[in-house]
């Protein structure tokens, strides 16, 4: 019976991994194949709005079923709040490009929503980090923190080096440009630690939300580097990375909803 239960978990995990890979391939293929065409902006913006909205919807289902009390209740309400703020940010970005037909200004209102999401997301990552991170060695924490700090130092130096500090909004622009990598670097520490510490439980072997966050920080860094280096080439790979990150969040929430929230009907059987 025990073996059967374990095999069932393995089967469900395999199905979710395959489903996630299929979703990433299909959506990112659409982004890739429309690059350079008239559809590029439309597909790019809609794909990001769609994937983050999917994650936000599943998070609301989780909150509805789990309610808001207890450590996990609060952690998942925070995640839902962060995802909803990202939906707003991506929608504003899309409205500029698709609705108004202009390039999204920097800084814009979308940045306010993106930055506001770091608070609740940080709460979620550090809270669930206590759960996933039992047994993490202090040496690992120090090494990952030092690596994040070094990356941040180089990155911020590069941003300041190429920033245009003239004009009324220049200072705000530079401050926001620096805020992203600082917050990313802070939150990447628990994410890397949890992913490297994973695999110790049958239901927790893949810390999806943390994997999603690592992908998101990579996408943020690539976007920052393109801005810093005045890169004018194609940016489709960054959109693909954001889509993969958002879908990882959705997969993590689907898994949590299925495996961690008791179903009264199933229990009664």
């Amino acid at each position, binding site marked *: *019976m*025990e073996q*059967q*239960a374990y095999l*069932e*978990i393995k089967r469900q995990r395999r199905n979710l991994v395959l489903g996630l890979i299929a979703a990433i391939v299909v959506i990112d293929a659409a982004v890739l194949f429309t690059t350079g065409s008239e559809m590029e902006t439309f597909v790019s913006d809609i794909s990001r709005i769609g994937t983050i909205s999917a994650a936000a919807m599943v998070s609301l289902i989780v909150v509805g079923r789990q309610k808001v009390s*207890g*450590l*996990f209740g609060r952690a998942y309400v925070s995640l839902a709040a962060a995802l909803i703020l990202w939906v707003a940010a991506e929608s504003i970005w899309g409205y500029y490009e698709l609705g108004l037909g202009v390039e999204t200004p920097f800084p814009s209102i979308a940045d306010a929503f993106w930055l506001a999401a770091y608070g609740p997301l940080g709460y979620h990552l550090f809270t669930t980090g*206590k*759960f*996933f991170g*039992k*047994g993490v060695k202090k040496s690992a924490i120090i090494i990952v923190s030092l690596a994040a700090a070094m990356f941040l130092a180089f990155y911020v130096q590069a941003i300041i080096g190429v920033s245009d500090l003239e004009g009324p909004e220049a200072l705000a622009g530079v401050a926001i440009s620096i805020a992203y990598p600082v917050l990313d670097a802070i939150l990447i520490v628990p994410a890397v630690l949890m992913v490297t510490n994973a*695999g*110790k*439980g*049958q*239901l*927790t072997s893949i810390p999806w939300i943390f994997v999603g966050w690592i992908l998101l920080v990579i996408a943020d860094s690539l976007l920052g580097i393109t801005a810093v280096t005045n890169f004018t080439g194609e940016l489709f790979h960054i959109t693909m990375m954001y889509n993969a990150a958002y879908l990882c969040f959705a997969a993590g929430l689907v898994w949590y909803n299925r*495996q961690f929230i*008791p*179903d009264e009907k*199933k*229990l009664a059987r």
Partner: protein
Amino acid sequence: MWHMNNRGVFSDPNKVDVNTFYSNLKELVGPGAEMIIEETWEHLQKHFGTKAGGDLIRSSPLERIQKIMEIGEA
């Protein structure tokens, strides 16, 4: 809980072995099981006014829960 049920942990609802429950939980969620037990103890304290007195003060949340289930109070 559904997985635990499949593993026979709740085969007799009137007699649940907390240690079996904990070892199964550890297999399912890894070292995070400890945190779930701590949360459960906090929940018992908050909602049922459960207190760890006597020699249970220095015991782990798992041992405290085990004692409560044995004698009804700790």
